[in-house]
Every structure is written in structure tokens, then in C-alpha cells.
């Protein structure tokens, strides 16, 4: 089987320089807008963020989703390893084979030499277990975090509009956009709590396996949080112009369309419709919101061993070029700029 060229480059779309410049401009605009709003509103903006955060933590749905995902993640990891680990040892599997076989459903990294020394083999296997556990939990964060962001985002402003409590909010010395940013900030804090809880679960599992604490996954979570944040901003904005259920529906459609499975399906359909069977359509993966580019980059933080990196990159598309994150930044910035243009002028009747 011919190994694919996994160095997915955003230049497929616009060229790295143009895309980078675009991302800088958009990101700069949003940052400037955010700073301006923050300065204009002072402490009140932070207060709204804190209040929104506390309000989210008091919702039952938040803890139901978080609780379910934590239980599910622990169950998946434990069942996988408690049942499979002795067999892996008996069959002399390498760590990377574990990752490839169980997470990537791939048989690409075959013929990898297994350390002859049983202690070294054990270490190698544990390395694979660590990577796989973290990959699974990161996958949970992106999936459940996105769902959480959509469910929270659906209600945050829509409920204010529906119950007309937005009138009271607007009558306070608070900029319109600060209301939007404040709500989004509260939502992001709630997602951060979820990320921290997943990290605690991850750390607990790794301690249980006798591997020890790993802090390297925290930046991975930070990068991955662009996905739920973008979906939260999108849902929050859509809920100001449409019914919350409609907003949530479209956000979920985009969420599924932009993950590996969804974009893979769309790419396949596009290929067959446009008769592009012979052509590379990786650029397609960059057209929808940012799950894939974020995934390509976030994995970097999880792989610290050069050898593991070498083998993982043979089975899993990965890039260490941070310019791949330009596209997610552009998506997020575009949503926030559109929200600024419309929400700050919106009439509440």
C-alpha cells in the first residue's frame, strides 16, 4: 500500500503566505475589537462572563453531558486496556501498533521491531497506551465539547431574547458586543472546566496504569478548544437571528460535516460528482470549520518521542506547521466579525 502524503498543507487552498496574512488580519481585527470592547466596558464585561459561567455550571444539561462523556471515556479506556493489554503483551505488540490498530483502525505501521527485552517492550507498550488514552480523551473533548458548546450556545442569548430579559441587560451600562463576548467567554470557561476534568481523568488513568502524570496534553486541549469555541460562537450568533433549535441544528450539521467522517463523506461525494477520482481533494478538508486542521496540529503535543512521531505520521496525517491553524482562526474571526456587524445593530422588538 502506497503511503499517503500526509503533510497536509493549507497552501492547497490559498497558498501559505496569503492564508497566513488573511489569518493575521482577521485575527488582529477580532483581537482589536475584543480589546476595544473590554476597555470600553471595564469590569462589567468580566462580571458578565463570570456570571454566565456560573449560570452554565448550574444547568443540569451541562453536567449530564460532561458526566456522560467522563464515564464513557473511562469505560472505553479501561475496557480496552484491561481486556486487551495481556494479549498485547503475549503477542509482542509494539506501542505504535496498539495505537494504529485500536485508534486509527489501520494496519500501516507493520513490521515495527518490538524490543527484545521484556522491560523495554513493557515501556514501549505503555508509551502506546499513554498516547492512545490521550488521543481518545482528546477525541472526546472535541466531540462532546462541541456538543456542549452547541447546546449551551443555543440557549445563552436565545433565552434572553425569548424571555425579554435582554431588555434589562441592554439597559445596563454594557456595550452590545460585550454582551456577546461576555456570553461567549462564559461558555469558553465552562468548556475549560470540561477540559480540566478530562485531563484529571486522563492523569488518573495514566497513574492507574503506572505511567505517571503527563502535562503535555494541556496545550493540545488548548488548541483543540478552537473547535468548540468556534461552534459556540456560531450557535450563539445563529440563535440571535433564528430560533434556537434551528441554530442548534445547523451548528450540529456543520460539526458533523467538518469532522473526519463528515468531510471524508463529502469529499467522496464531491469526487464522484465532479469526476475527480484521480485528483487529490485534501483541500476539501479545509473548507469546513476547523476540526481537521486542529486535529492535525493538536496531536503534535501528544507525541514526545521521535520514534513514535515517525511511526504515527505514517498512519495519521499530522503537521507541525502552525500555519495550519490559520484557517480555524479565520473561521472564528469571520463568525465574530459577522456577529459584531449584526448584533451590535440589532433591534429587539
Amino acid at each position: 500500500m502506497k503511503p499517503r502524503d500526509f503533510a497536509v498543507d493549507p497552501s492547497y487552498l490559498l497558498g501559505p503566505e496569503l492564508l497566513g496574512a488573511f489569518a493575521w488580519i482577521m485575527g488582529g481585527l477580532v483581537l482589536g475589537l475584543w480589546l476595544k470592547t473590554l476597555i470600553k466596558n471595564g469590569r462589567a464585561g468580566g462580571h458578565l462572563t463570570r456570571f454566565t459561567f456560573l449560570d452554565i455550571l448550574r444547568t443540569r444539561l451541562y453536567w449530564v453531558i460532561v458526566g456522560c462523556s467522563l464515564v464513557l471515556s473511562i469505560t472505553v479506556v479501561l475496557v480496552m486496556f484491561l481486556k486487551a493489554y495481556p494479549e498485547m503483551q503475549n503477542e509482542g505488540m509494539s506501542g505504535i501498533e496498539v495505537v494504529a490498530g485500536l485508534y486509527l483502525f489501520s494496519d500501516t505501521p507493520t513490521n515495527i521491531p518490538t524490543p527484545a527485552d521484556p522491560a523495554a517492550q513493557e515501556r514501549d507498550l505503555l508509551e502506546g497506551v499513554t498516547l492512545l488514552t490521550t488521543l481518545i480523551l482528546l477525541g472526546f473533548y472535541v466531540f462532546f465539547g462541541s456538543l456542549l458548546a452547541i447546546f449551551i450556545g443555543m440557549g445563552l442569548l436565545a433565552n434572553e431574547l425569548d424571555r425579554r430579559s435582554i431588555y434589562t441587560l441592554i439597559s445596563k451600562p454594557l456595550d452590545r458586543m460585550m454582551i456577546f463576548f461576555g456570553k461567549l467567554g462564559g461558555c469558553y470557561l465552562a468548556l475549560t472546566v470540561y477540559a480540566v476534568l478530562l485531563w484529571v481523568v486522563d492523569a488518573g488513568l495514566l497513574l492507574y496504569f503506572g505511567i505517571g502524570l503527563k502535562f503535555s496534553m494541556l496545550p493540545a486541549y488548548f488548541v483543540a478548544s478552537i473547535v468548540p469555541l468556534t461552534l459556540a460562537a456560531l450557535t450563539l450568533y445563529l440563535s440571535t437571528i433564528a430560533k434556537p433549535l434551528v441554530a442548534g441544528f445547523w451548528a450540529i450539521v456543520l460539526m458533523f460535516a467538518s469532522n473526519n467522517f463528515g468531510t471524508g463523506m463529502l469529499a467522496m461525494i464531491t469526487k464522484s460528482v465532479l469526476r475527480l477520482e484521480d485528483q487529490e481533494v485534501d483541500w476539501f478538508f479545509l473548507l469546513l470549520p476547523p476540526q481537521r486542521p486542529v486535529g492535525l496540529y493538536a496531536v503534535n503535543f501528544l507525541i514526545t518521542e521521535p520514534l513514535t512521531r515517525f511511526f504515527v505520521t505514517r498512519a495519521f496525517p499530522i503537521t507541525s506547521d502552525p500555519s495550519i491553524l490559520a484557517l480555524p482562526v479565520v473561521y472564528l474571526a469571520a463568525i465574530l466579525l459577522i456577529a459584531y456587524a449584526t448584533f451590535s445593530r440589532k433591534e429587539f422588538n
Partner: protein
Amino acid sequence: MEGRAGLNRQWNQGRIQARGPYPRGQLRGYLFGALLPSPPMPAVATAGLVKRYPQGLRRPPVLALKGVTLEIPRGEVFSFLGPNGSGKTTLIKCLLDIAKPTAGTLSLLDRPVSDIQVRRQVGYLPESPYFYDRFTGEELLRFYGGLYAMNYAHLEQRIPVVIDEVGLGARAAARPLRTYSKGMLQRIGIAQALLAEPELIILDEPSTGLDPVGRRQIKDLIRSYHQRGHTVFLNTHILEDVEDLCHRVGIIFQGELLALQTIEELTQTRSAVVVRLRNPGLLQANPLPELAEGIAHLGSGRARLDLRDGVEVPAVVRALVHAGAEIEEITSQVVTLEDRFLDLIGEKGGIPESVRAQLAAGLHPVEDPSEAVDPAGGTPAP
């Protein structure tokens, strides 16, 4: 010597007027402040305010405000009266930048309404307020106080004060809002409007959901804030409250400001008589211009004659008989705010004919006109 903050406080309490280089002084104040007293800036000023709500492509837009020009001086209790859908809440929404006016100008405390800083001096209670029900009353007040960027110590000091002022009680304030009754929600809503001791307090239907004791408490509270120099803008349907509390009243109907007068100007202590004649043609125009200032047609052949000062009913009866009137019914009446309100609205066709006739007869409107009873023993009102 008092600093700028002290002057600000005094200004907010209405103890000083705009004369010189005070916080809100303008160039005029800086240049001539020592020599010329400038008039106090109004708390609310609108000029030619128009608000049009588009209704889609096929339907004509709804004109909610038709060139409303209004000025409310600082320190006044002002009320806006009008039937449902007459544009009262729309005006408040425009004042608070919740809705954008189609045309015209408006300012709050001499600043444009889009300036968020001006809202530090505005407290607002919306109609039928809803608040975050997962929070307790105290937490809610802490939240809104935070949005005003109130000093933490001051906020903690103010919360029990306003809770007490609105008659909520410390125990109730510690309960989640989802357990509150409608009246309690109204009280916490009023509390959040008063929390920052704003210079301008806008209350939209503050008595909704309150029992008679609560209504009385809120009336006393409004009076007390007025005495402390706050301006109060009241939107209410309860005319009795308006008569008790307000200095001036604006009557609005279908987006048009019909009257903007003091209560005294509107009601005037003169009397009136309601008459019904067998020969109603005589009432087409004012039959007694020397005794009555004007005539208002109330429907069902009835008309009200607004008498000139000192004119008594027997003199009117004599003059009517002398003019050839065949009197079927005559009742003496003192003009109340309600009468004036109904007159003004009635003239614009805002009251159904049957209701007008019943009101003129001193009856409450009834669903079935045949149930109306004529006290004079005449035929039932149509």
C-alpha cells in the same frame, strides 16, 4: 472642600443645578458659568421621534411613534398614559437603545442614548420582567450591581437596603428566583432598577402583580426617591397612582402624543354635567357658550358640558330649558384624570361607542350591552 465625586453625588441627588463647570457643564457653563445660570438639562428629551416597524414586503410598516416631542425635567415624576399598543413601551425601548428610532432625536441626561456611560445613571424595570431563575434574589442584585461596576463594599451595603425598600425580606432574597411569585419577581425587578441609585428611574408597569399593600409600598418608594432628587418615568395604566404621584402626564395614542400637561392642567377643578335630551340636535354645538367652556359628545345622545368656574348645575338646567331643551337626564360630574384620558382617547376613536356610553353613565363596561342599566330608568344603553 468637596471633590468632583461629591459634586457628582449632589448633582445626582438634585441638590445642585447646572450652573457652572460642573461634571455635566457644557462650554457655555465653562465660559459664563459664573455669570449666567443655565437652565437645568432635561432628564429625557425627544424631538420628532418616529419609530416605524417594517412588516415585511406585502404589509405596510406599523408606525409606532409619530413624531413624539417630549421633555422631562430632572427631579420630576412623569407618567406616560395610553391604551395597550399605543407606543409607550416603544418610546422606552428607544430611550434605552433597545430599539433604534426611524427619525428624530433623543437624549438621556443630555447625552445621546447610544452612549453606554449614560446608562450608569439609568435604572429600568421592564414590563413583566423575567430574571435568571437559577439565582437567588441577592445573587441577581450582585450581578446587576456588577454590571453597573459598583464598588463591591457599596454594593454589599446597598443590597439589603433595596431588598428592604421593596419589601422583599432577607429570607426571600436568599431563595432562588424560580420559587418567587409574580409579585416577588416584580419587587426584585424594582430593586435592581433602584440598586445603583440612578438619576433616572424608568418603571414600566411597576404595580403589575402586586397586592394593594405592595402597590402602596411601591408608591411610597417612588415618592421617597423623588424626594431624594431622582427623576422617575412611569408607565402605568393605574390612573389613581398617576394622580397620586406624578407632576406631569403625557397621553399617547397610536404613537401620537395627545397631551403633555400637569395633572392640574388636565383635570382642572371645574365641574361638568352630562346631559341627555329628547331633542339631541340641540347638542350638536355648545348650546351654552356663556356657561360651558366646551362640549364633549359621549355617544348614545349624551354630551358632557364642561362648566366655567363658578357655574352651578341649577343655572345650567335653567339655561337649557330656556334654550328649548327637553331634558331626559342630567348628572353632575367632576372632571377626573380618567375623564380627560377617556375624552382624549375617545376623540381619536380609541374607545368603542358602547363603552363610551357606559362610561359616561358612570357604569363599568359590560360584555353584553343589554345588561347595561340606565340609572335614570331610560332605555338600556345600546
